[in-house]
Structure formats: C-alpha cells, structure tokens
C-alpha cells in the first residue's frame, strides 16, 4: 500500500516539476521580451552572436544539406522511375526540403551545434559568477548577455534552413541530372511550376523562425538557470539538446497540421 502511494507521489512530483519548469520558462520569456528591443542598442553584440551561432554552423549545415539532397535524389529517382515519372524528381526533392527537411534538420543540427554551446557559455558565466559581477556593476546581464545570444540564434536558424534547402536541391540536381540523367529542364521546370512562393517557401521560412525562437529560448533559459556546478552545467547542456529537439519536432507537427493539413 505504502509502495503504491510512493509510486503515485513520484508521478505527481514529476508532473509538478514539469509544470514548474514550464512556468519558470514562461516567466523567463516575459523578462526576456522586455530586453529584446533594448538589446539592439548594441548591434555589434548581436552581430558577434550571429557569427558564433550562425556563421560557424555553416559548414555542418551545408555539408548535411548536400548529403540529404544526394540521398533524396537517389531514393526519389528509384521510386519515381518505377512510375516512369522521374521528371518529377526536382519537385519532389525541392518540396520535401523546403517544406519539411530544411527547417527541421537544420534546426536539429543547430540545437546540437550552437544551442548547446550557448547554454554551456552562459552556464559557465554563471558558475564563475561573471553574471553576478555584471549585476554588481549595474550592467543588466539579461540585456548584455542573454539578449544578444537569443537574437543571434533567432536570426541564424532561418538563414541556415534556407541555405540547407538550397544546397539540398543542388545535391539532388547533382545525383538526378548529372549522374542519373534526368532531364535538366524538367528538373527545374517542374520545381518552378509546382512550388508556390508563399505557401511553400514562406511556410518553410515561418517554421524555421518558430524553431529558431524555441531553440534560442531553451538554450538561454537552461544556461541562465543552470545549477552553478560542473554537473549542473552538464545537465543544462544535455537538457538544451533534448528539450529543443523534442520542441522542434512537436512544434513541426502542429505547424504542419495547420499549414498543410485538411
């Protein structure tokens, strides 16, 4: 009996902890919202963070995009050629990249490459009491440390997703047209014909902006509230990758259901 109660209590504790976590993050997001505009009084700080989060992620994003495009080209050609419709390879590769794979895979890679780095950096600043020192000097760490990092991630993710999709389509072109001999004009022509600028490209861009906001918020929150110990930093970094990956995938389903469903 007491064992059963204990199990029940553990479940309840888990639930309460989750809700508390979500609530704390929402309050943190409100605090952050107040400094989002004032952060731009130092645009150089933001540029520095776009460099750290975005430019330095370019290599992994572009290489991954190229390989995803190559694989899509191969698999798509295999399937489409059984229906004698390999001319549609271009539109298949382009639509799956622009609508889904570009925003999602770029966001997942970004969470692992840059989100974790943001969390670790802020958590180390907290552990070594640099954030407290800033406050002692009447410098708001929210505005000076957290804000630029949030903006840096938010700006970088959509740009990286766009480049990912573009490189992926070029990868599909390389396999489909150059190697497997699909007609080049059909490859591009069908893309131009069937891809809608607003629904497809705009929808994909909207998705990646939302993913950028999710990753950026989780990364700075986990860093800012990390336990100031070595193991606390480790846990915060792991949390960032896990939570933002799950957040991106969950949000993707919801946004896809709204944009392309029904």
């Amino acid at each position, binding site marked *: 009996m007491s064992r059963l109660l204990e199990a029940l209590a553990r479940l309840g504790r888990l639930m309460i902890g989750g809700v508390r976590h979500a609530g704390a993050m929402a309050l943190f997001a409100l605090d952050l919202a107040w400094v989002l505009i004032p952060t731009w009084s130092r645009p*150089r700080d933001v*540029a*520095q963070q*776009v*460099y750290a989060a*975005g*430019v330095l992620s*370019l290599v992994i994003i572009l290489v991954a995009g190229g390989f995803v495009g190559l694989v899509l080209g191969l698999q798509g050609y295999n399937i489409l050629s059984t*229906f*004698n*419709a390999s*001319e*549609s390879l271009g539109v298949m590769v*382009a639509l799956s990249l*622009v609508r889904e794979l570009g925003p999602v895979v770029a966001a997942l890679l970004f969470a692992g490459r840059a989100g974790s780095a943001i969390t670790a950096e802020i958590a180390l600043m907290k552990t070594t009491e640099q954030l407290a020192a800033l406050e002692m000097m009447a410098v708001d760490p929210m505005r000076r440390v957290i804000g630029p990092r949030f903006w840096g991630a938010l*700006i*970088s993710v*959509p*740009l*990286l997703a*766009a*480049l990912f*999709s*573009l490189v992926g*389509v070029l990868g599909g*072109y390389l396999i489909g*047209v150059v190697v497997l001999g699909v*007609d*080049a*004009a*059909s*490859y*591009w*022509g*069908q*893309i*131009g*014909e069937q*891809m809608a*600028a*607003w629904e497809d*490209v*705009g929808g994909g*861009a909207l998705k990646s902006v939302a993913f950028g906001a999710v990753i950026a918020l989780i990364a700075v929150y986990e860093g800012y509230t990390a336990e100031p110990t070595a193991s606390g930093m480790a846990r915060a970094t792991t949390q960032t990758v896990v939570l933002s990956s799950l957040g991106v995938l969950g949000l993707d389903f919801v946004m896809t259901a709204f944009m392309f469903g029904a």
Partner: protein
Amino acid sequence: MNVQRGIEVVVGLFVLAGIAALMVMALQWSNFGASRVNGYEITARFDNIGGLTTQSPVKLAGLTIGRVESIELDPDTFQAEVHMIIDGKYDSLPTDSFANIYTAGLLGSQYVEISPGGALESLEDGDRITMTQSAIILENIVSKFLFDKAKE
C-alpha cells in the same frame, strides 16, 4: 578592432546569402537551368494541350529533339498555339509530320511527340504542323467507356 570588423563583414555576407537563398527559392527558379536550344521554331495548334507547359520536351521516336518555347491561345479558333524550338541538328523533319501530345507513363509530365511523315520537303523556321492530335484526357476516355458500356 580589426577582428571585430572581419566578423561584421562575414556576418553581413551570411545574412545576404541566407536571404538570397530564400529569394531564389521563392521567385520561380523555373528558368534556372532551362536549356536554351539553338535551332528553328515551328508551331502547332491543338484543341487541348492538357498539362503541357513551356520547357516541356519535344520528342521524336522517344528522343528529345527540342523544347516547347511558349504557348498561347488563338483568339479566333480558341485553339492553343504551341511554339516549339527544334534543335538545328534535326533539320530534315518532313512537312507532313504529325504532332501528338502524350503523357510519359501514367503519372508523368506531358510532352509533344513528332511522328515524321513522308513528304520530301523539310520543315523550316516558322512553319506550322497542321496535323495534330490533342492531349488524351483520361476522364473523357473513362466517361466514354462507361457510356458505351451502359448502352450495351
């Protein structure tokens, strides 16, 4: 200060590249790799072109010999006038050739198939193919089949 400047330049490039990628994807990249065929132009009128579009291939015996350049509606006959550019290599198409619109496979895109005739003169730049057959609309065939079946 120099390092900061370098970072700013690289960030600027990064932002521009990302926006350029979005623009390329949004603004019709149909003419991206469109191959310009050097050759001569012939036209043909069809009652119904189905899903034929510009850049659709023009084939002879299954080989691509040209491209559809433009399609417009003839306001008098209400037919679609299809302008095709044929590769200059293939300059001996007989004047009484036949133009069909076919579909590649069941789900594929549509293309113009030229069936050569027997005349001795060849088609020249600006000539018209008079014998054409429209795109086969699957619904028409199915409804015709059902209609015939019902009569039996």
